[in-house]
């Protein structure tokens, strides 16, 4: 034990954004909690989707023309968004709680490449996990709905957009969680902020006069982001892509603030 045999390292070593992304991917995949959170997300998307679809088939709608077969089969996304948001948050707050953030930032002293690395590694992982989940939920849901002739095919207008849009929405919520975690550096505070941002605006709006609330509703994060995942358009909401773009803008603002704070504040 008294002899330390450590040969010199002669290999090339330099920081690069691509390498930092690989590093963040290594961090993400090496935590058991990541696997559990992703598994929970898939189970929520598919499981809740199936349960809700079964429920709706048991009580078929009076007017089938207002029935949104896509939204019904993807109902699980509404719950799964919290699992994925919390995972995005833990990806960075976990480093603050364990003080390993200092090890990370000492290795990436420019700091911002670490945040972008996390965003890319986490974003790609979420897309890869959520696309199959929403597709599975859609296909299974439609086969249940076909019993009452309520199903819809992928070829119908807006269906592919709504299904894949749901996966993109999940990814954006995950990145929002990551941004809030980076900004607040604290899991409890971050989760409160995430739930607050996704729920509270609708509650506050409900207290205002209808003329104001109807005009403002479309700009709230959840209605804006959810527009992409339904085929039938909510008359009060923005168009699917406009709404999703607005949700991405909110996420980008949070990540931008987090980046600014990351550069400015002591680690």
């Amino acid at each position: 034990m008294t002899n330390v045999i450590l040969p010199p390292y002669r290999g090339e070593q330099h920081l690069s954004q691509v390498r930092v992304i690989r590093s963040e991917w290594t961090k993400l995949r090496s935590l058991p909690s990541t696997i559990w959170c992703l598994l929970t997300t898939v189970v929520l998307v598919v499981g809740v989707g199936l349960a809700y679809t079964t429920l709706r088939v048991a009580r078929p709608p009076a007017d089938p023309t207002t029935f949104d077969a896509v939204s019904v089969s993807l109902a699980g996304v509404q719950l799964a968004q919290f699992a994925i948001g919390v995972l995005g948050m833990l990806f960075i707050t976990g480093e603050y709680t364990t003080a390993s953030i200092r090890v990370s930032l000492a290795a990436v002293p420019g700091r911002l490449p670490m945040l972008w690395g996390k965003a890319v590694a986490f974003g790609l992982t979420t897309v890869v996990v959520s696309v199959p989940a929403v597709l599975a939920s859609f296909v299974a849901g439609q086969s249940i709905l076909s019993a009452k002739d309520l199903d819809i095919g992928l070829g119908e207008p807006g269906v592919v957009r709504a299904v894949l849009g749901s996966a993109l929405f999940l990814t954006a919520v995950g990145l929002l969680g990551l941004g809030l975690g980076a900004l607040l550096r604290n899991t409890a505070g971050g989760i409160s902020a995430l739930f607050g941002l996704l729920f509270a605006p609708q509650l506050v709006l409900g207290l205002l006069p209808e003329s104001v609330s109807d005009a403002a509703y479309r700009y709230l994060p959840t209605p804006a982001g959810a527009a992409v995942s339904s085929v039938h358009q909510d008359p009060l909401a923005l168009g699917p892509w406009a709404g999703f773009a607005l949700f991405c803008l909110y996420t980008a603002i949070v990540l931008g603030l987090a980046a600014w704070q990351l550069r400015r504040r002591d680690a």
Partner: protein
Amino acid sequence: MIEARELTKRYGDKLAVDGLTFTVSPATVTGFLGPNGAGKSTTMRMILGLDAPTSGSVLVNGKPYRAHTAPLREVGALLEARSIHPGRSAYNHLLALARTSGIHRSRVDEVIEAVGLSGVARRRAGKFSLGMGQRLGIATALLGDPRTVILDEPLNGLDTDGIRWVRALLQSLAAEGRTVFVSSHLMSEMALTAQHLIVIGKGRLIADTGVAEFVRAGSRSVVRVRTTHPDALAARLSGPDVEVSFDRDETLTVSGLTTDQIGMAAGAAGITLLELTAQQASLEEVFINLTRDAAEYRANTVGATS
């Protein structure tokens, strides 16, 4: 090489680091010594760019740390033991770190082997003891084969074997020409580990000197005298540079005189001596005396300005 110039850090109205100027040279082990809360960790975080100085600057190998494009090649640091997510294995922790700079996988195995963690490297780090955490921290510091090594309290939590191992490691790193900067709050640890000392108290520089010089300059030899007539002897010994204090029983502590001088004075006055012992201040005492002075100086200056 680490060069700090007037480095200052203020948290609210508390001055954690106060105008520190020092240079840490290559090819030697430099001890960074100070009581808990003296500002050692803050200084180390500023060297690594983790905390921004309120004023002043610090360069590592000629540049601010942030300006280096191969940071792990320039500085390897251990800031806190067990700075690892408890769910992740030591291997993956080091691999993620290596990836940032494109360091090869085989290097991760090498450092794990070198610090003696091969048996546990693939297990979750949550169950690591403090000693294993320190070894992992040292592995982290050595990953990029750095020119400068910064270790904050690396001996904490290690057993005797571990302490001996870290000492040997530090000596060999310095012998290879690296800059080695190691903090501790225990003088006794540093006396055997470091060749050079930077001592701080309350965020201020107290000493920047070799270990031997530090002890020589700071120690004041005193003589313990036990006698049947302490009052009479004390009166005999008094002089301009002499300090006599009365301890319990019939014992005096005398500074400023040698045992020979005291023995002769007692003989001339016909006073019987029961004990006459020269006492060298220990390293720990030197350190405590010096840092206590710094604390009092600070208290006085605050009082004078308010």
